């Protein structure tokens, strides 16, 4: 049994990673800004046109101090695209959005510029090989509400259920040996051949290669069944397994 799950026009939502420079200021800000100015004087235009993420984790500052810091940085042509590690209480309207989930790569100090860390949100491109190795991860416990499994490199296999309010984002296919109650997004970096498999479908949202489907739009006959989903053109197709 095959059912159409999507109408012709759909909205594409895709994940994309960019390289951003992470600035981690320390207290007192005045001293730090002096050192930043010193750096800027030595390598003019370092921050021009670069997306910069401000890392304020573990800094005991309040909203006013953060606002002042952002203003000071804007005056130096440093444009903050997001704030990492900020407590919700110090963030507010008119500030760059909070970012989380950034993965540090080995800190690379730019020559003679010890206060700048370079972090890459994607794994470093490995040396091109003739046969790229396919990656996958296996998670042996239930994914709880509020948890995210994000694995852009390949397939994700879950031995257990995915709770309502949890999400799985995979570059490849998603296999769930349990009930899928949360969200599953396969082929998140643009892989139209990715599929989603689950032992029992109760999903809140399903997406393959950016084309998504909410729970209400799914054929009711599929609920509670063992299902696989794949993409044909711009439509998510679904089929009961067994």
């Amino acid at each position, binding site marked *: 049994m095959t059912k159409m799950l999507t109408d012709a026009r759909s909205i594409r939502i895709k994940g994309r990673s960019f390289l951003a420079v992470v600035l981690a200021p320390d207290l007192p800000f005045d001293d730090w800004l002096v050192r930043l100015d010193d750096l800027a004087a030595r390598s003019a235009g370092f921050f021009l046109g670069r997306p910069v993420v401000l890392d304020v984790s573990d800094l005991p500052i309040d909203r006013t101090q953060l606002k002042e810091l952002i203003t000071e940085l804007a005056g130096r042509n440093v444009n903050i695209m997001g704030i990492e590690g900020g407590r919700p209480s110090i963030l507010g309207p008119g500030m760059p959005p909070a970012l989380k989930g950034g993965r540090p790569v080995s800190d690379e100090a730019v020559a003679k510029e010890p206060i700048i860390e370079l972090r890459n949100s994607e794994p470093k491109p490995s040396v091109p090989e003739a046969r790229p190795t396919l990656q996958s991860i296996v998670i042996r416990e239930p994914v*709880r*509400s509020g948890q995210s499994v994000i694995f852009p490199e390949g397939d994700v296999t879950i031995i257990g*259920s995915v709770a*309502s*309010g949890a999400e799985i984002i995979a570059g490849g296919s998603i296999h769930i040996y349990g*009930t899928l109650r949360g969200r599953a997004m396969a082929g998140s970096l643009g892989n139209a051949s990715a599929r989603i498999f689950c032992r029992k479908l109760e999903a809140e949202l399903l997406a393959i290669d950016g084309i998504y489907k909410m729970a209400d739009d799914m054929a009711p006959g599929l609920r509670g069944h063992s299902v696989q989903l794949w993409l044909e053109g711009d439509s998510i197709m679904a089929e009961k397994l067994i």
Partner: protein
Amino acid sequence: MGKVIVVTSGKGGVGKTTSTAALGAALAQRNERVVVVDFDVGLRNLDLVMGAERRVVYDLINVIQGEAKLTQALIRDKRLETLFLLPASQTRDKDNLTPEGVERVITELKRVFDWVICDSPAGIESGATLAMRHADMAVVVTNPEVSSVRDSDRIIGLLDSKTMKAERGERMEKHLLLTRYDANRAERGDMLKVEDVLEILSIPLIGIIPESMDVLRASNIGSPVTLADARSAPAMAYFEAARRLAGEVLPITIPGEKRGIFGKIFARRAA
């Protein structure tokens, strides 16, 4: 060394404080030394449920900030020799709880008591994460309805990532306590069934507490339900849960269903 239990749920109003008091009193009646600690700083309730609200002089925050000694803040229960309460502060807020202070207090309590039962505040913010941080095991209190179950699931995720045990790479022992259960309403589909909750949360069950007026009555007279009326259905369910916490293996019964002929059919073991 005593065992530290956190009673937590994520969602408010599901019965954390009631369960903390009832389990504490049940364990103390086995002649074990028990302290119940109220972590709900700013919204303290455990003193009321324990009937000790008029005897609070110093509280957890005073101890953490060094304004009082632990022995000055501990309140001995009037009915049970081995039951103590460490109340929360009503005038401060949760920002006064420091990780170092909490660690010091818990370590000291563990040395003296067999059981340290921490009543967590609702939510997933610092108060709740500090209450669970040093726990050896967790009692996840859940009502048989979807929002409570989802919040419990979130809390289980935090128990597996934010606690000292999890950070040391050990497994946190988690137990499900299903409260306010009404077998008739579950049968009619107004409530989730026990099986449904267990299937979603997939942690072992230590007890099913029936929805009962006895619980409310006990709270209002300032007595844990296991002390107020030890023969009532919720009290008996809490006594069984306390025995399971202490390591006994007992079959779980669903309250509200007639025992006897049906007892065998409905008796079931923890998942």
